[in-house]
């Protein structure tokens, strides 16, 4: 591959955008152009809808898109986790079949990993895949699946060998969600929202060609998906600057973002809304109570220190230093901050914390904080699992003895 310079890339993308960008196009029509030209995902390989550019130059392309206000490829939900996994482990047939429609936004994806019987212990999955003729037959139950109710395809981790050890009996599939054997039910949470689904598989079918990687390599493939998840390849679409832009394509993109972000509306409340604390203390007069002042100060000290800790981690990374312990602590710190914030919001709100809904403080936002915070120390790895990770990887303490070795068939489970 010949080396290209930043100036060349900038000139080329500008020229292409000048010739092609039109805000009155339909969103899908435009994104097909992006996929076929490779400008939508310039860091992807040339043969798969990219231009094979290094990440630094891909950022240059992103800048040029942003300068012009040009819309990019679809990025919401787990679609890019699916794409990253397929690029690394998928067959050519799978890449051909799925990648383009991921980028155009025509297909939506979800992730069938967690089960009622295996939450923290993801590799303990018991959803089964049995090969019957040309199809894998899927039976079992998945849970905490975001967007399954409007997804077209799912990334599925299922057990194909019950005599192999736990991690070696899993395989990874792409399953068509819209088929009779897949029953998607909303899962209502304690805060009243239903951001996730539980999904029941009864003799659901997966064609052999949709096996990703080899049989028994499902854990390895899933690790790729999870690594991209941790790196933040999924996530919320933030239509911040796009709000005011005019044109058919922008309206369609806003509608798409609205739909994609809908399940996450309560996420800021889950994190405790530290940003509201001082204003709330002033508006209620709680800022005159010495005890409340102490508790506010404790919370703010923790929140600020956590923020500066992640800044330290980033600064060390930017200087090319090996990552210190400060890089692994963010999630646990966020849990502590959220819990402390819920405590302080309760102190400030007093008896009104008995109320919820539009008639309650801040149109129900405070009440939503109080019943959403318990999620933060569970979602994406419980605090206890985080502590194990910190203890084992950062502090290099020994692992607990295991009881889940040998054939999975004999391992005690739910």
């Amino acid at each position: 591959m010949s080396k290209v310079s930043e100036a060349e890339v900038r000139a080329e993308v500008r020229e292409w955008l000048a010739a092609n960008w039109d805000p009155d196009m339909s969103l899908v029509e435009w994104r097909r152009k992006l996929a076929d030209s490779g400008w939508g995902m310039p860091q992807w390989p040339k043969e798969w809808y990219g231009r094979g550019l290094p990440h630094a130059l891909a950022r240059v392309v992103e800048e040029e898109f942003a300068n012009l206000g040009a819309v990019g490829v679809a990025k919401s939900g787990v679609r890019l986790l699916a794409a990253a996994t397929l690029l690394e482990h998928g067959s050519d047939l799978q890449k051909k079949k799925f990648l383009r429609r991921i980028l155009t936004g025509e297909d939506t994806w979800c992730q069938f990993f967690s089960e009622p019987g295996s939450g923290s212990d993801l590799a303990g999955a018991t959803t089964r895949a049995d090969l019957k003729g040309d199809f894998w037959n899927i039976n079992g139950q998945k849970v905490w699946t975001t967007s399954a109710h409007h997804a077209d395809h799912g990334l599925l981790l299922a057990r194909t060998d019950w005599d192999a050890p736990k991690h070696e009996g899993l395989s990874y599939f792409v399953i068509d969600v819209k088929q009779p054997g897949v029953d998607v039910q909303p899962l209502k949470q304690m805060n009243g929202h239903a951001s996730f689904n539980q999904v029941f598989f009864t003799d659901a079918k997966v064609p052999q060609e949709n096996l990703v990687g080899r049989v028994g390599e499902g854990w390895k493939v899933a690790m790729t998906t999870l690594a991209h998840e941790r790196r933040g390849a999924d996530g919320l679409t933030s239509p911040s600057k796009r709000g005011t832009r005019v044109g058919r394509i922008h309206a369609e993109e806003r509608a798409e973002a609205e739909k994609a972000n809908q399940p996450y509306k309560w996420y800021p409340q889950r994190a405790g809304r530290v940003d509201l604390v001082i204003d709330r203390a002033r508006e209620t007069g709680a800022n005159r109570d010495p005890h409340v002042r102490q508790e506010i100060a404790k919370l703010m000290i923790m929140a600020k220190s956590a923020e500066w800790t992640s800044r330290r981690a980033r600064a060390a990374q930017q200087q090319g230093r090996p990552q210190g312990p400060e890089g692994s602590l963010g999630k646990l710190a966020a849990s502590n901050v959220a819990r402390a914030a819920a405590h302080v919001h309760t102190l400030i709100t007093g008896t009104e914390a008995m109320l919820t809904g539009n008639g309650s403080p801040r149109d129900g936002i405070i009440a939503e904080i109080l019943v959403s915070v318990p999620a933060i120390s569970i979602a994406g790895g419980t605090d206890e699992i985080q502590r194990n990770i910190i203890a084992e990887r950062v502090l290099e303490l020994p692992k607990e003895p295991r009881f889940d070795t040998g054939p999975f068939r004999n391992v005690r489970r739910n």
Partner: protein
Amino acid sequence: MSTSDESRLESKRRIQFAFTDEQEQFRSAIRRFLGDRSPTTEVRRLMGTAEGYDPVVWRQLSEDLALPGIHISEQYGGAGFGMVELCIVTEELGRALLCSPYFSTAVLAANAVLNAGTEAQKSALLPDIANGARLATLAVTEPNGNWDPMSIKVAAIPDVDGYRIGGVKSYVVDGHVVDLLIVAARAPKAAGREGLALFTLDANAAGVERRLLESTDPTRKIARIDFHGAHANLLGGLDDGAKPILRTLDQAAIALANEMMGGAQALLESALNYAKLRVQFGRTIGSFQAIKHKLADMLLDVELAKSAAYYAAQAAAVEDPEWPALASLAKAAASETYLHTAAECIQIHGGIGFTWDNDTHLWFKRAKSSEVFLGQPSYHRELLMQRWGV
């Protein structure tokens, strides 16, 4: 955007979240020196003496490493660095628990002179402090233990050739061994901020009665000083004399927060090493989740409080307008974290951790006394709220 917003943004930009390579090398040099000169056998020997420090080590620390004047500009005989470097020093001293008059001389007295002194006074006083020849300290608190300078009662009465000081100061760090005393006092009958000022005295002058107190933390000596009309000179001016006092105490709170983080890190490492060695029930205790989770929480605590201590030092170094509030924030965070880490370190050691022979109590006592030195966490949390305008 207003000018103050711009200057705030400008200083935010200059706040560094990583130490420079030079600062890391500086830290390593101090750590090597202290590893050699301040093993716990030395700490234990010196904490049992009345002086509480080794003059030979103090001379080496002053002459070879130039530490007492690290933050004093070169024109006054110092090394010309600032708050960040001063705090690297205190962090390392806190880690090694060095018994020395550093906090009194370099942190309290030198900053008081820098903040309050006239050009002539700085030129006269600082070179001997910077080269370690002259020990000095700052006396603010009185027997009531209040760290708010507004409560100062010690009186300074004008005299023909200066002032006469009367009253009692207490909790004066190294007050029993220093050569120079800097005393916060007020003109008679003036209350609040009015009439507060700093005064310098020869510690051996007539009318100065110094008594070493029995301190919880024997590695930091404190004294009570009775002034019976002792002769003193005004340091700086009488206008808004509370300002340099507060500024000195805020800088000291940041230096102390960093010192505490050095100690907390030492305790965390000690607890971690012990958890990897100690075997019970056929396993190292560090393989039990009860201990692993405790250590993970300790690490989280220490890293967060370190971030606050480092950020406050950086903010003070660039004179970010928010830095006095951050001094209180860092001090409150460090106080809670240091003591908690010390208590958990004893807990992880079990019975042996409660013995005199085990070294943990040396840091525990430093943690306990530092918790209240310069004001306890609740005092600083209230100060933080006031300084943030809540």
